[in-house]
């Protein structure tokens, strides 16, 4: 029951994107299509889960004063692993996500979870927390990307739904990201209140 809570809170109740408003930079930057949002979300999920787990394993060995640099090194290691693997086996996705993959290192969600959760909880809970938060982030990014892609280019996951002549180009550009995010936050707040 408790582990299920650790896992599920990332989707709505403590959704990193819609409730904690962390990691706004990749959220707004990469979600011009559903596939980009999903790819970015899953890359972040891997980093979050692994770094949470490792931080939780070594937390008692790391002196308090150097915990932040140590966590950052651990996070950066996993980010580089993702970057190299993606470059080798998913070059297309790597190209469209570009700079945002190395920038996972400074994504506030990752260090935030390491500091707020993994450094105080046992390894298994931390791993599950990381997975839940990461999948919540993926869910949010995919949702945002799908809506923007649908309104802005008439497609979802590159499947054309209606003609390009009727699209609102604004939604694949930066202002569209802010508009859709705003409406989604309002909607999530409404759901949480109910």
């Amino acid at each position, binding site marked *: 029951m408790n582990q299920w809570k650790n896992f599920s809170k990332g989707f709505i109740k403590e959704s990193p994107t819609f409730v904690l408003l962390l990691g706004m930079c990749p959220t707004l930057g990469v979600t*011009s299509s559903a596939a980009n949002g999903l790819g970015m979300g899953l890359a972040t999920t891997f980093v979050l889960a692994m770094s949470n787990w490792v931080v939780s394993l*070594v937390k*008692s*060995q*790391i*002196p*308090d*004063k*150097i915990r932040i*640099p*140590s966590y950052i*090194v*651990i996070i*950066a*290691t996993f980010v*580089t*692993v993702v970057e*190299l*693997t993606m*470059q*080798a*086996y998913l*070059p297309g996705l790597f*190209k469209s996500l570009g700079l945002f993959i190395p920038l996972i290192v400074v994504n506030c969600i990752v260090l935030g979870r390491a500091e707020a959760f993994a450094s105080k909880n046992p390894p298994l809970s931390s791993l599950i927390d990381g997975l839940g938060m990461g999948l919540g982030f993926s869910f949010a990014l995919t949702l945002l990307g799908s809506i923007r892609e649908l309104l*802005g*280019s008439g497609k979802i996951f590159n499947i054309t739904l209606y003609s390009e002549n009727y*699209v609102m*180009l604004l939604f*694949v*550009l930066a202002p569209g990201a802010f508009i859709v995010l705003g409406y989604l936050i309002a909607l999530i707040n409404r759901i949480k209140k109910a």
Partner: protein
Amino acid sequence: MAQRESTFGNMVIVLLLVTLISAGALGFVHDMTSGAIEAAKIKAQNDAISKVLPAFDELKPPVTVLPEGETDSVLVFPAYAQGQLVGVAVKTYSNKGFSGHISIMAGIDKGGNFTGYAVLEHKETPGLGSKMDVWFNNADKPGQNVIGKSPATTKFSVSKDGGDIDAITASTITSRAFLDALVRAYAAFEKTSGTLSGETAEKTN
């Protein structure tokens, strides 16, 4: 386990260990993936070359051409079918895009006409400048099509600047940059065409 104390010695040892372990792990992953990364890059390049040229069976190593007054060079890949030059694929670029650098693979046949192109890298506005990957390759709209044309007979600049090619609607700057890249490709083709066909003649004899 009790928390390790923040003494100087502890901090140095722990940080050293953390960085050493991650360096080791990264070295291992790098070794595992470097071959695949290289292969993926070459595959992407070869895919682009076969997309822009008519069928060929042999691709020679590229010739590097440095355009006048530039610091970055252009790569010319000669392609042969049964020992005869069918055309060259030119990896060209322009730095005049709306958001800077654009990299394009352009195919040019023996006669100097463009046979196709593929946009390799760009940061142009989605939905506007990014349309260049289809805009200039449209047989139904001869005004904006560049395929089958040569800068020797057609003026490769946008109609707004007195040229013969129609720019992408609302993306004149991107269109200028695109044509700039093609003209650069053509210049590189002209520079190398003499040496390339000579090489074939020797090979076929």
